[in-house]
């Protein structure tokens, strides 16, 4: 039976079980006293039964779908038709894959003659295992149902059991996110380790020449020095972008929390938040098509005739604008967290609003603001789309914002969108860069969150 049909069938059984258990529990004898009241409501018995029917069967189907292809393949290999196959290896896998496509009706002709021979055997094995899987799933559903059915008694604690099942489901959901993060981190570490077997860590971290196009096979580290990338990332994300984002973000937060009338705040804050929701690729267009050329024109006017339109300034400026709402909302939160009594105390001394902000509110909110800036920096250096579209691919260490600079993220994209084979140092370098970026942003986040936490404690 087809997988989806089977799942629907199991769920259908669950639904029937729900109704049956519910109806049966509803017919419990009316209790004489409050102490005799059934432990659980009919609906909870219903869910208890439905879970016992569906959960084990679905779990089994999940495992089965992972295991059965291997079982089918082994079955095919043990048939006489498979006798003429080559030994284990790439060729055999290709033939088997082709036979599978034929057997499942996904392909109409085979490139390999042997695959066509194998197809009937494959189809037979497949249908046999499908049948086994279906039978087992349905048996499990019934077994679970029977187990739950015997538990439909007034004194059975279906309520607690259902609660536990809910807790378990939620736990699994949250674990999936954590495990995925771990998995990503592990894959980064493994690929980076492969890279660092070819290229020494010191060459990568301290080398100042980055030209992955011309890797020398006898000394790949010589042209894979990431310092220009780190510098470009820092220059664009942590310097230029922050020069834009910090003052404007902070000032808008101060205005919104301290000066704006509730009416003004009501429409200004959502607009700022919309700015945060603009897809970064749109900022990318803006940077590449509007800001970049405009800045080049300015640079030409200032006497730099060969200025690039892919300047660090263009990417940094637009990135800064993108980060403004982020800084603003963090600063907004931390200013709002300063107790009103502090503000009153200052105003009652005769301080004006701006004196109060400058001398009391901002110093008090400073740790929160700093944490917000750190988080903003970590976002900026991880930002990809704007720099892919607006920054240059040429790595250089420069202090001139009109010159081109490149970033870690931009280089990762360039390295992975090429046609190099997967094992080359050039491709693997992308993972090493990714790991470095991950480590830096992780560190920034940890520091920022600790600062925020300590600051919160101070006022609670």
């Amino acid at each position: 039976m087809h997988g989806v049909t089977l799942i629907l069938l199991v769920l259908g059984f669950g639904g029937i079980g729900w109704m049956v258990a519910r109806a049966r529990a509803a017919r419990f004898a009316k209790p004489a006293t409050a102490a005799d009241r059934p432990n659980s409501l009919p609906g909870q018995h219903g869910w208890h039964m439905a879970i016992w029917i569906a959960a084990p069967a679905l779990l089994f189907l999940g495992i089965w779908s992972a295991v059965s292809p291997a079982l089918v393949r082994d079955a095919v290999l043990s048939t006489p038709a498979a006798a003429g196959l080559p030994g284990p290896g790439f060729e055999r896998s290709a033939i088997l894959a082709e036979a599978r496509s034929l057997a499942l009706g996904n392909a109409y002709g085979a490139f390999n003659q042997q695959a066509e021979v194998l197809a009937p055997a494959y189809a037979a094995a497949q249908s046999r295992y499908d049948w086994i899987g279906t039978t087992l799933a349905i048996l499990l559903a019934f077994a679970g149902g029977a187990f739950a059915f015997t538990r439909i008694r007034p004194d059975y604690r279906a309520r607690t059991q259902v609660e536990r099942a809910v807790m378990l489901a939620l736990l699994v959901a949250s674990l999936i996110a954590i495990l995925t993060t771990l998995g990503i981190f592990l894959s980064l570490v493994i690929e980076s380790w492969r890279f660092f077997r070819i290229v020494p860590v010191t060459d990568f971290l301290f080398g100042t020449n980055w030209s992955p196009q011309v890797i020398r096979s006898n000394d790949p580290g010589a042209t894979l020095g990431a310092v220009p990338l780190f510098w470009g990332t820092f220059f664009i994300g942590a310097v230029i972008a922050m020069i834009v984002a910090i003052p404007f973000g902070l000032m808008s937060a101060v205005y919104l929390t301290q000066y704006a009338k509730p009416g003004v705040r009501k429409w200004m804050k959502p607009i700022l938040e919309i700015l945060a929701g603009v897809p970064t690729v749109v900022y990318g267009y803006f940077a590449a098509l509007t800001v970049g050329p405009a800045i080049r024109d300015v640079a030409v006017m200032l006497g730099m005739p060969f200025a690039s339109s892919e300047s660090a300034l263009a990417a940094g400026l637009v990135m800064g604008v993108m980060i403004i709402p982020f800084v603003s909302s963090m600063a907004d939160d931390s200013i709002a967290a300063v107790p009103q009594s502090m503000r009153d105390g200052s105003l009652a001394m005769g301080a004006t609003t701006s004196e109060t902000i400058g001398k009391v509110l901002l110093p008090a909110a400073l740790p929160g603001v700093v944490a917000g800036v750190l988080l903003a920096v970590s976002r900026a250096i991880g930002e990809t789309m704007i720099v892919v579209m607006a920054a240059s691919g040429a790595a250089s260490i420069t202090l001139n914002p009109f010159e081109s600079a490149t970033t870690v993220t931009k280089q990762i994209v360039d390295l992975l969108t090429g046609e190099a084979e997967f094992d080359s140092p050039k491709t693997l370098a992308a993972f090493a860069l990714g790991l470095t970026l991950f480590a830096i942003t992780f560190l920034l986040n940890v520091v920022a969150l600790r600062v925020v936490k300590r600051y919160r404690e101070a006022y609670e």
Partner: protein
Amino acid sequence: MTDTNLSNAVPKLSARGVDVFYGQKQAIKDVSIDIAMEHVTAFIGPSGCGKSTFLRTMNRMNDTVSSARVTGDIRLDGEDIYSPAMDVVQLRARVGMVFQKPNPFPKSIYENVAYGPRIHGLAASKGEMDGIVERSLTRAGLWNEVKDRLTDSGTALSGGQQQRLCIARAIAVDPEVILMDEPCSALDPIATAKIEELIHELRGRYAIAIVTHNMQQAARVSQRTAFFHLGTLVEYGRTSDIFTNPRQERTKDYITGRYG
């Protein structure tokens, strides 16, 4: 009604026919009262009776609440404090305030006291500022406890010390009137006793208005008592008269603990 001017004292602040509204709701109805120099005036009454609201009209702290509206006439030395000509910065330097919960700034003890003098430009040199800080802390009875750690954070002090720091901060700008909004409600009895003692000592230099929930406190520290109820001033007179011989039935009921 009550007599608003108690003959032998010079009124420093005088309110006539003051109404306060929060949006549509009237919080204070037609209150008239005089606050005299060298006197402590206690505002008592049940929660929500408007005594704190009224206190905050006297240094225009209600300005910071956007829905609040004050009408009527409040004069400081005969000058209308709600007139456009009145600079609220100057007003608040002359009418200082101490809040319910100690609210030192997250700065050093020294900087807390120096905050007001800096804003108002009262000290021309470091030496002068040191003098102001020492004098204010001494008057607030805190100097001996903190003189060796002026650079410590004001928030690291105990609750009672923090409140005395806030009083030092308020008197550092040399005000004429000090408003205290339940200054002891967040403190333990020993710290409360110290603050009360301090109020006694400060009385000679300032006009002090204190809001309190605690009738014993009002009886202990004040010479004049005003009883507020439901936004109106029910009775105002010498503290001894109010507590021993109230003229209004409502005052008597409140003082004897019938409600509140």
